[in-house]
């Protein structure tokens, strides 16, 4: 067994070294793959807060991913067509500035998570899964029918949005930005897991009656976790849209929700680096197996089956054993 800290360190090192090597070797496509993995990882870190800490099996996280994507798409679309987003009652214009887009993406996702959470958290178990899935489908079909923003075809953004001081069109610079955000969110996630809130949330997942008998409200704890979770996944959505310079209703699809969940389960539910490992493995499989066969999902399914049957802690759990209790 390898200590979890070392596994995490190795993953971080890999995410630093491989893109740098790709830059030196002039392999921009590898950097794009790494960026894709890092953004997926960020989306899954978001889900892991709801799923791992809060025990909320959300099959609707594509809602937040898509909202982040459309926040970027809509703002950048108005900026590149020089049309205002709205003129009345006050003027709102599009923007090509990443920080503004991120803020909009996160606020929109947080509000959506608040509303969806308030309604979904009345249910548990399979009903919770179904209701979050239903919300996902609602957003998906809404996006398809929203002709103003491309409907089924989505929106293309011709130039990647800007970040002060960086040239985001250079792959390694955009990668560095995404990687930096992932690291920051991981630090916050680690703090959250050990905080008073993390303790209470963790107990709410295991034994809500206990939390209630010490005078706390497990529902509210889970709702806040769901909002934090959705906010992070929303930010990832904005980055993903910027990576592809394209946003379409697929980002809202239930397949997307499923993929985000697969990242978490593959890597290890409730493990800090589980979602990161899961996303990296997924993107690697997608690339290498996808090159061999169009039906590479069969192998992914097989791997997922093995993980679920024999390694409940995911790949991280397989490598480093049970989570250590910290003192």
């Amino acid at each position, binding site marked *: 067994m390898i200590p979890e800290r070392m596994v995490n360190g190795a993953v971080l090192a890999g995410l630093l070294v491989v893109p740098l090597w790709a830059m030196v070797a002039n392999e921009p496509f590898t950097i794009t793959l790494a960026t894709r993995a890092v953004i997926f990882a960020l989306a899954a870190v978001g889900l892991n807060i709801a799923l791992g800490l809060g025990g909320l099996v959300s099959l609707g996280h594509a809602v937040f991913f898509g909202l982040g994507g459309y926040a970027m798409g809509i703002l950048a679309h108005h900026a590149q067509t020089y049309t205002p987003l709205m003129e009345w009652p006050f003027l709102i214009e599009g923007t090509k500035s990443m920080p503004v887009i991120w803020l909009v993406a996160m606020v929109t996702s947080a509000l959506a998570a608040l509303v969806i959470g308030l309604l979904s958290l009345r249910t548990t178990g399979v009903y919770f899964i179904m209701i979050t899935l239903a919300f996902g489908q609602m957003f998906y079909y809404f996006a398809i029918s929203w002709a103003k923003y491309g409907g089924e075809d989505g929106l293309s953004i011709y130039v990647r949005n800007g970040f002060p001081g960086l040239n985001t069109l250079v792959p390694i610079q955009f990668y560095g930005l995404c990687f930096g955000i992932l690291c920051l969110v991981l630090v916050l996630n680690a703090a*959250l897991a050990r905080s*008073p809130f993390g*303790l209470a949330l963790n*107990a709410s997942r295991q*034994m809500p009656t206990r939390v209630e008998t010490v005078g706390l409200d497990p529902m509210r*704890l889970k709702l806040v976790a769901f909002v934090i979770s959705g906010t992070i996944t929303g930010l990832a959505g904005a980055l993903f849209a910027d990576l592809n310079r394209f946003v379409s209703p697929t980002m809202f699809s239930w397949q997307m929700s499923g993929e985000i969940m697969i990242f978490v389960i593959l890597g290890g539910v409730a493990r800090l680096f589980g979602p990161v490992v899961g996303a990296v493995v997924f993107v690697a499989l997608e690339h290498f197996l996808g090159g061999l066969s169009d039906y590479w999902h069969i192998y992914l399914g097989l791997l997922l089956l093995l993980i679920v049957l024999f390694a409940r802690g995911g790949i991280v759990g397989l490598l480093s054993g049970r989570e250590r209790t910290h003192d």
Partner: protein
Amino acid sequence: MTDPVLETHHLSKSFGALKATDSVCLDLQPGEIHAVIGPNGAGKSTLIAQICGGLQPDEGRISFQGVDVTALPTRARAKMGLARTFQISALAMEDTVLQNVLLGALGAAGQPWRFFRPVMQDASLRSRAEDALERVGLSDVRTSRTAELSHGQRRQLEVAVALTLQPRAFVMDEPMAGLGVDGSRRLTGFLDELRAEAPILLVEHDMDAVFALADRISVLVYGRVIETGTVAEIRASKAVREAYLGEST
């Protein structure tokens, strides 16, 4: 007689045709242990669920420290200082022993909305939690996972979590169940001293413990309190003998 800490007034609850709680009037005085005994199916657990919250009575009301709490949710009653221990341990099994008592301390402090500083480094929460563990004698296993504890240790942990709330009254649902002679004797000694801190409503099957501890006993049969009195009165009561003690001896 002083004002009771906890009181039920004609509490009734039916499930279909079954009257699980039938006009129950109980009170808990400061400094006392009031035991509730009764045969299986007498409605003891139903009664506790109504007192602590989670089950709404059909009729009657519950007052705690002079406040009508009938309509309040469990967590509000807990905040007022009503501490409950469960018959079947309700603990966070994956967490450590210390984390479980910390949760109690956190609840008592009423501040779970802190997201950054590690809870383990909060000196005031931690000392409150460790004190509670010390008192029930679980300090040695504080870093163990709760799932690894013996049955008896889990019962002690239940009590420790209740202690962290620094409650005004305890409601304990069969704390002795499955403890064995030794453990049961130790817990009896502990509860004996605890009543000075806060009165205890004790639902218990272990008659030795009940007779050793209780200041008063209420006997519940088919949802009704057929008798309330001191140990001697209950032992002498003909009705109780017929309804309950007679059956078991």
